């Protein structure tokens, strides 16, 4: 192992995989087949793909990285994450938006992956955000894929507290994907870092997403799934977590909700049931290992506000439902606005109210 520069063999490997992307997309259907393929040597892969093995020029490769503002870390360097060393077919090179030291800092303490569906419900987003915030506050690094929905909410929650959060992308790490999360990308890159095993400038391909999910599970000490329908990519991450021996947790949902069917199945098959950041911490640090620093205890809310908050927590999500519980319309409106200003409830885009977790 060395400090210094990433080695030519690893850079060559990285370039070869990028060149063989179309072949890997085709031949690597099914996660196991993909991992088997990624375990092969450069020359064997090239032979299977019917191409010449050509790793390109490592010097030029490093130049490209520098221009894109990325740091390349190969598996022979000290900075390479120790958690990936036991991984079969681990990426040869990680490209990172910050100097390697920053990645080291982010991964020095306990890490936790929070993943889930892109088509999340408002409650799912709120849960992911609260988990991210709680873990970050307790000093646990939150790892996710910056995808729409749960992933982004987990990152955003982590950024609300002072801890680290690392985004693992399927395409080149120099570019936000999906692009609507450009703002989030910048904030993550500023606080911690965004990493990818794809080359700078590479567009994400299907096999890269599968490999990326494995990388997320690999970088994390434990994985939590928040909301996932039965065919979600997040369930693939959960599968990797099991294979890699990482503890797995899942936030359950209503049995009638299709978008919770995947997580409910995980709980049924033995994943830890996660309700809040405390439960999540237990998964990664053991019972009483660390605590979520609780802010000052929330003041007891007086009469009407307390009733409203209780009704919202019970699931009376809209003002009209609250009116039906016998509170006058003007009192409902004024009360909800006050609760919102106090941060006790949150209004969703569709105008329903959720208890702030």
């Amino acid at each position: 192992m060395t400090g210094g520069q990433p080695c030519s063999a690893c850079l060559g490997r990285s370039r070869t995989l990028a060149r063989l992307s179309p072949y890997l997309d085709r031949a690597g259907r099914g996660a196991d087949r993909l991992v088997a393929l990624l375990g092969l040597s450069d020359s064997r892969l090239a032979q299977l793909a019917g191409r010449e093995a050509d790793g390109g020029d490592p010097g030029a490769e490093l130049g490209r990285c520098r221009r894109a503002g990325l740091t390349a870390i190969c598996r022979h360097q000290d900075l390479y994450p120790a958690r990936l060393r036991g991984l079969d077919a681990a990426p040869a090179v990680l490209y990172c938006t910050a100097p390697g030291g920053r990645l080291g800092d982010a991964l020095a303490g306990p890490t936790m992956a929070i993943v889930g569906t892109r088509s999340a419900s408002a409650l799912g987003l709120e849960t992911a955000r609260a988990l991210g915030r709680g873990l970050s506050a307790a000093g646990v690094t939150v790892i996710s894929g910056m995808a729409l929905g749960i992933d982004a909410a987990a990152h955003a929650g982590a950024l609300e507290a002072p801890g680290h959060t690392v985004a693992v992308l399927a395409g080149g790490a120099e570019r936000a994907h999906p692009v609507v999360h450009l703002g989030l990308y910048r904030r993550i890159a500023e606080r911690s870092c965004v990493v990818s095993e794809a080359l700078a400038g590479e567009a994400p391909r299907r096999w890269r997403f599968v490999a990326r999910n494995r990388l997320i599970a690999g970088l994390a000490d434990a994985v939590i799934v928040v909301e996932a329908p039965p065919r979600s990519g997040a369930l693939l991450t959960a599968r990797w977590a099991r294979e890699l021996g990482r503890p797995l947790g899942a936030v359950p949902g209503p049995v009638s909700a299709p978008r919770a069917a995947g997580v409910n199945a995980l709980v049924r098959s033995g994943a830890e049931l996660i309700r809040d950041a405390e439960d999540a911490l237990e998964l990664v640090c053991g019972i009483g290992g660390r605590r979520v620093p609780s802010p000052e205890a929330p003041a007891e809310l007086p009469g009407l506000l307390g009733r409203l908050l209780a009704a919202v927590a019970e699931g009376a999500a809209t003002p009209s439902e609250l009116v039906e519980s016998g509170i006058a319309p003007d009192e409902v409106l004024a009360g909800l606005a006050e609760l919102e200003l106090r941060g006790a409830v949150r209004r969703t885009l569709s105008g329903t109210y959720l208890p702030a977790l």
Partner: protein
Amino acid sequence: MLARARTFALDGLESTGVSVEVNVRSGLPAFLIVGLGDTAVREARERVRAAIVNSGFDFPPRRIVANLAPAHLRKEGAGFDLALACATLAASGQLATAALDRWALFGELSLTGEVRACPGTLAAAEAARRLRCRGLVVARATAPEAALAEGLRVAAATSLREVVALLRGAPAPATAPAQPTSSPAEEPDLADVRGQEMAVQALAIAAAGDHNLLMYGPPGTGKTMLARRLPSILPPLSRAEALEVTRIHGIAGEHPGGGLVGARPFRSPHHTISAVGLVGGGARRRPGEASLAHRGVLFLDELSEFSRPSLEALRQPLEDGRVTIVRGQRAVAYPASFMLVAATNPCPCGLEDEMCRCTEADFARHRRRLSGPVLDRMDLVVHVGRPKLERLQAAPSIHSAEVRERVLTARERRSARRPDPVGAACGGDRLKWAQPEARARSALAAAYERGALSARGHDRVLGVARTIADLDASPAVRLEHVLQALALRQDAAFGAQRAA
């Protein structure tokens, strides 16, 4: 021989005087009409010829040239028929030319010589009064409408023969002005609505302060029903407003021969409407739905289904209360000052709760379709949900009359506080005008600091809070008024979600 008659042409929502000059001279028999007329004016030749012959007069077999002056003004419609026929009769010596000075003429002719109503009678009558015409002859059906122009002598006629008799000096019985045909009390009543107290409260606020309102909720919960009942809690039209509305509807041909409009208009165009249909214009310039809703309610159901250009076109009327249309090198301004009420599903699938399968991207797309010019100007956003069964089957608890009473009192308080800073008023003025208490101001400041409100949102919330205070008979805006206004404001929730 030359004769001249006085009639009127529509120009936007006004009418201008047109002089019909007819010259009859020897030559090959022909009937020519010049003066920038449309197809209806060209076809007047056949109607006028047949009407004259069938009324027992002679149509001169000579060269007849009719000129509609001023020549630069485009003339549309069939209202020139009567003046053309009478001027032709005078020019051919069957009627004294001096008789045409006493009466202006406005009406369409049928081939039998019957005088028919045509759109824009009130506008024509107002122009006649403005131009100090001594009297106006119109079809019997539209005479009460014309008589709304005070101080104008109006004669009703059913046939060309009657018109000729009038012009020859027969006595013209006075026509009584039209009575209001509708009033807010006759509109559908809020008593039909069960268990939507929240929405009714929002309707009352909207009615008291002329705020735009968006209702959202799953299909079949009564959004359209609620909106339809908004005119029943609005104050009746003043006489000037009623005349204005009657004139606009008359010109659009929406209100042929009817009386004075009494209740505020309620227009609910289908979502496939084009931008031209919504704001007016087109080959034959015609007021759009926005102008037909002038002084009333424009209701857009399924707001997200309206085309982008249509919604963009609403920007000007929402800001200025009128629409300017430039067409064929002429600009026409249609008044379009309305209260906008819209309804939409909460998400593309329209379902709520666990059954909804919409992704965040679907949701964002739905939201984007709504946002922009219209959503920005929605002061009140209220959820209309499914009421509980026992509420649905309960006796009516709210009646329009009571709500209207509260609205009227609040509106009086509002107008007593003039000047009302609308639109670009600076924050200081608005604060002075609204008179918020210290606690109300700090709640507003807290919402602003949290990034939940834009500067415009801040002012609009204050405006809504002022209205709520007026409904509450409170001289100052108190904390609960601002809180209610915040809860009804749509973008107050945005700050929280946008970060995700």
